[in-house]
C-alpha cells in the first residue's frame, strides 16, 4: 500500500502565474535572479516567470531585457500580421505585418508618457525606463498570445469572405491577449507602487481606444485598398458603422441575385 499521507509534489514558486507569490519582494526567489540572456529566455520568462522579468527590469541589465521583449514583440507581430494578411493575400501579405508592428508600437509610444504620469501621480517609484519595460512586456505578452490564436485566425480567414466577421474575430483575439498583457502591467505596478490605481485603470481605457483608433488609421489591415494608408480620416466607430453597413448592403444584393 502507498503511504497514508503522501507529500504533494513541490511546485517551484514563481513559475506559475502572478497569483499568490506576487506580493513577495522581487528576486526573493533565486529562480527570479537567473539572468535573461536573450530572446528565447525572455520568451520563456514572460510566459512562465513574469516576476523574473519584473526583477530584471529593475536591474542594471534592464536595457537588454527591454530589447529582448521588443524583439519578441516585433517577431510575434510580424507572424500574426502575416496570418491576418492571408485573408486578402497579395500586397496585404507584407502590408498587414508592417501595420500590426507599427500600429501597436506607435500606440504604446503615444501612451507611454501618460502612463508614466499616471504612475507618478499614483505614488509609484518606477523610473521611466522601468515603465517602458512594463509596456514592452505588455506588447510582448500580447503578441505572443496572438501567435497562439494565429492558427484559429488562419482557418477562419480561409473559410470566410466577410471582412466584418474577420475584423470582429481579430479584435476579439487582440482584446483577450491584451487582457493578459495588462495583467503583467498590473503586476509590475503592484511591485513599484503597491497598487494599480484609478489613474492606471483610466490609462488602460485610453490605451485600448488608441489601439482601436490605430486599426482605423492604418486600415485596411485585413481587407484590400488601392493605397497603403487610407485617404479619408475617420474615427473607428464611424469606420465600423460604415463597414457593417456596406457589408449588409453587399449581403442584400447577393441574396437578391441568389433569389433571382
Amino acid at each position, binding site marked *: 500500500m502507498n503511504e497514508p499521507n503522501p507529500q504533494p509534489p513541490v511546485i517551484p514558486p514563481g513559475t506559475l502565474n502572478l497569483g499568490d507569490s506576487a506580493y513577495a519582494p522581487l528576486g526573493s526567489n533565486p529562480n527570479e535572479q537567473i539572468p535573461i540572456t536573450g530572446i528565447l529566455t525572455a520568451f520563456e520568462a514572460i510566459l512562465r516567470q513574469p516576476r523574473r522579468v519584473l526583477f530584471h527590469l529593475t536591474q542594471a541589465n534592464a536595457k537588454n531585457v527591454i530589447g529582448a521583449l521588443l524583439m519578441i514583440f516585433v517577431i510575434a507581430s510580424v507572424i500574426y500580421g502575416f496570418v491576418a494578411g492571408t485573408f486578402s493575400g497579395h500586397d496585404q501579405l507584407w502590408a498587414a505585418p508592417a501595420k500590426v508592428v507599427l500600429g501597436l508600437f506607435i500606440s504604446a509610444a503615444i501612451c507611454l508618457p501618460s502612463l508614466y*504620469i499616471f504612475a*507618478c501621480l499614483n505614488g509609484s517609484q518606477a523610473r521611466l525606463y522601468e515603465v517602458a519595460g512594463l509596456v514592452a512586456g505588455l506588447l510582448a505578452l500580447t503578441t505572443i498570445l496572438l501567435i497562439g490564436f494565429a492558427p484559429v485566425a488562419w482557418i477562419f480567414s480561409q473559410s470566410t469572405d466577410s471582412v466584418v466577421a474577420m475584423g470582429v474575430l481579430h479584435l476579439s483575439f487582440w482584446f483577450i491577449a491584451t487582457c493578459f498583457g495588462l495583467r503583467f502591467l498590473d503586476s509590475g505596478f503592484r511591485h513599484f507602487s503597491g497598487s494599480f490605481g484609478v489613474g492606471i485603470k483610466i490609462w488602460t481605457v485610453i490605451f485600448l481606444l488608441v489601439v482601436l483608433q490605430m486599426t482605423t488609421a492604418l486600415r485596411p489591415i485585413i481587407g484590400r485598398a488601392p493605397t497603403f494608408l487610407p485617404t479619408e480620416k475617420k*474615427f473607428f466607430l464611424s469606420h465600423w458603422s460604415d463597414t457593417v453597413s456596406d457589408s449588409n448592403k453587399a449581403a442584400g444584393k447577393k441574396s437578391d441575385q441568389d433569389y433571382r
Partner: protein
Amino acid sequence: MNPSTATPTATHALPDILRGDTKHLQGWIQNWQTRQFAFAILTIVIGSSLYGAAVGLWRAPAQACYVALKMPLILLGTAFGNAMLNGMMAPLLGLQINFRQSLLAILMSFVIAATILGAFSPLMFFLVWNAPAFSVNGSGSVHASILLLDVFVIAFAGIAANARLLKLLRELSGSRAIAMKLFFAWIAVNLLLGSQLSWILRPFIGSPGLPVEFLRADAFHGNFYEAVFNAFKNFLR
C-alpha cells in the same frame, strides 16, 4: 518647517513632485535656486507648448504655432500676474511663507499641470491627426469633440496640480483650516486672472467659421465673465 529637508536637483525633482512626496514638495519651495526656477519655467513652457500645438493643429499649422505660444503665456501670466497678491495673502491667511516661496508653490502646481499636459500631447496629436480634416462647413462635431477632450485633459491636469498644492499647503501650515483658506483664495484669484487671459488670447482650437489669427479683432472688448453672463441670459430667453 523642517530645515533638514532635502534639496532636490531640478531634473530629478519632477517625478518626486508628481508623486506628491512631502519631503521634496517642501524642499522645492524652501530653497530658492536659479536653476530650479529656470527648470520650472522651462517645464511649463515645453509642456504647455506641446499640448497647445497639438490642439491648434487641427485648424491649421499657423494656429498650432499660435497656441504653442499662447498656452505658456496664460500659465506664466497667471503665476506672475498674481505673484504679489498670492504672496500677500499667505501671511494674511495664517501661513508664514515669503513672497518667493509662495511664487514657487504656485509655480510647482503649474509645473505639474504643464507636465501632465505635455504627457497628453501625443494623445491629443493622435486625435487631431485622425479627425476629419477642417472644412468651413460641417466641422462642428469635430470641433466639439476636440473641445470636449481639451476640457477633460485641462480639468484633469488642473485637479491633479491643485491636489498637490493643497497637500503642500497642509504640510507647510500644519493646519487643515489655514491650508484650505489659502488654497481657495489662491485658486479664486488665479481663476479670475487665468480665465480673462484665456479670453483675451482666444482662439485656441479655432472656430470653423472664423479665420486663423493670433488674437481676435475684439480681443480686448468685453471680458470672460461678461460673455458667460450674456450666454446665460440668451439661454434663459
